[in-house]
């Protein structure tokens, strides 16, 4: 566990380093994720290695790590309530359109390229 966590923290440090050196407005962990992916790929990392075990353990509880920021809603309840309609409509509307555009474009292009997939099977 600690060995895997050390690697994950190490790649986060590397990501932060890259972000600072290149001076880009992307979070360090996102760059760390992409770098770790490349390394796992190149090293043909096995399914039972420490990075996989530590990573899976953290991802099982991903939702927990969002709680402290999410509780921030209590500070803004008044503001959000006052502008409830524009906030709800803009957030939900753009969410729905974004979801449909990404899903539709990806599957549409697959069909154009002649490689559509259907993983859900026949609904019968």
């Amino acid at each position, binding site marked *: 566990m600690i060995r895997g966590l050390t690697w*994950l*923290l190490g*790649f*986060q440090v590397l990501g932060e380093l890259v972000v600072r050196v290149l001076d880009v407005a*992307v*979070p*360090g*962990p*996102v760059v*760390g*994720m992409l770098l*770790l992916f490349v390394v*796992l*790929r190149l090293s043909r*990392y096995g*399914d039972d290695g420490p990075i*996989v075990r530590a*990573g899976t353990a*953290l*991802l099982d*509880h*991903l*939702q*927990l*790590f*969002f*709680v*402290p*920021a*999410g*509780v*921030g809603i*209590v*500070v803004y309840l008044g503001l959000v309530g006052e*502008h409830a*309609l*524009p*906030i709800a*409509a803009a*957030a939900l509307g*753009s*969410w729905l*359109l*974004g*979801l*449909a555009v*990404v*899903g*539709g*474009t*990806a*599957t*549409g*292009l*697959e069909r154009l*390229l002649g*490689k*559509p997939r259907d*993983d*859900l099977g026949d609904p019968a």
Partner: protein
Amino acid sequence: MRDDLLDLARSPLVLLFLTVAGYQAGRWIRTRTGGHALAQPVLVAIAVVGTAITVLDVDYADYRGATELVAFWLGPATVALAVPLHRQTDRLKGFVVPMLVALVLGAVTSIVTAVLIARALGADEALQKTLAPKAATTPVAIAVVDALGGIAPLVAVFTIGIGIVGAVIGPALLNLLHIRDRRARGLAMGAVSHGVGASRMLREDETEGAFAGLAMGLTALITSLLVPLLALVLF
């Protein structure tokens, strides 16, 4: 209540305990309801903690400081999203071009429509700017809003809120839209509901989770590049 007991109730230890216990309660409810879509542990935990700190009259800033230990792990967990992706790499074949085109179009759609809908319904410019990058993962959204001149702490609430919406109704909506390729399903959820959406997809299916994680990462990159450009046109 006695002052020393009240001090204990407001201490970092108890605030941290409430956070983990609220999350644990959410997991318990999820199991008890057979994985009902509404039973997202993050939602239950926010409700429990939000109520508790309001009753105990704890400043949010103090709560945030006390739970830095929990929030910290979001970074390493984001790095860890490389793991499911690595295990699913062979599924990337023939999907790279559709994926990149879809994510760029999706990010433009999400940013532009959020601003325009908010504007049409009378939201002020600060609020429009705060809504613009809400599809990106929390740290990116905060950085983007900061640079743009919106309300940075509020965008964290929007992103997590929309992440929860995705976790609750996303899979059902994808069925309704007839998106049946697991790669595209994960991609769509990660693009609009970032890590919270990815966590739901990881529970559904590893392929969906892996592509949600990838979409979250790439959308973070795309959003931080696109919002400043689109802002020139929009504001």
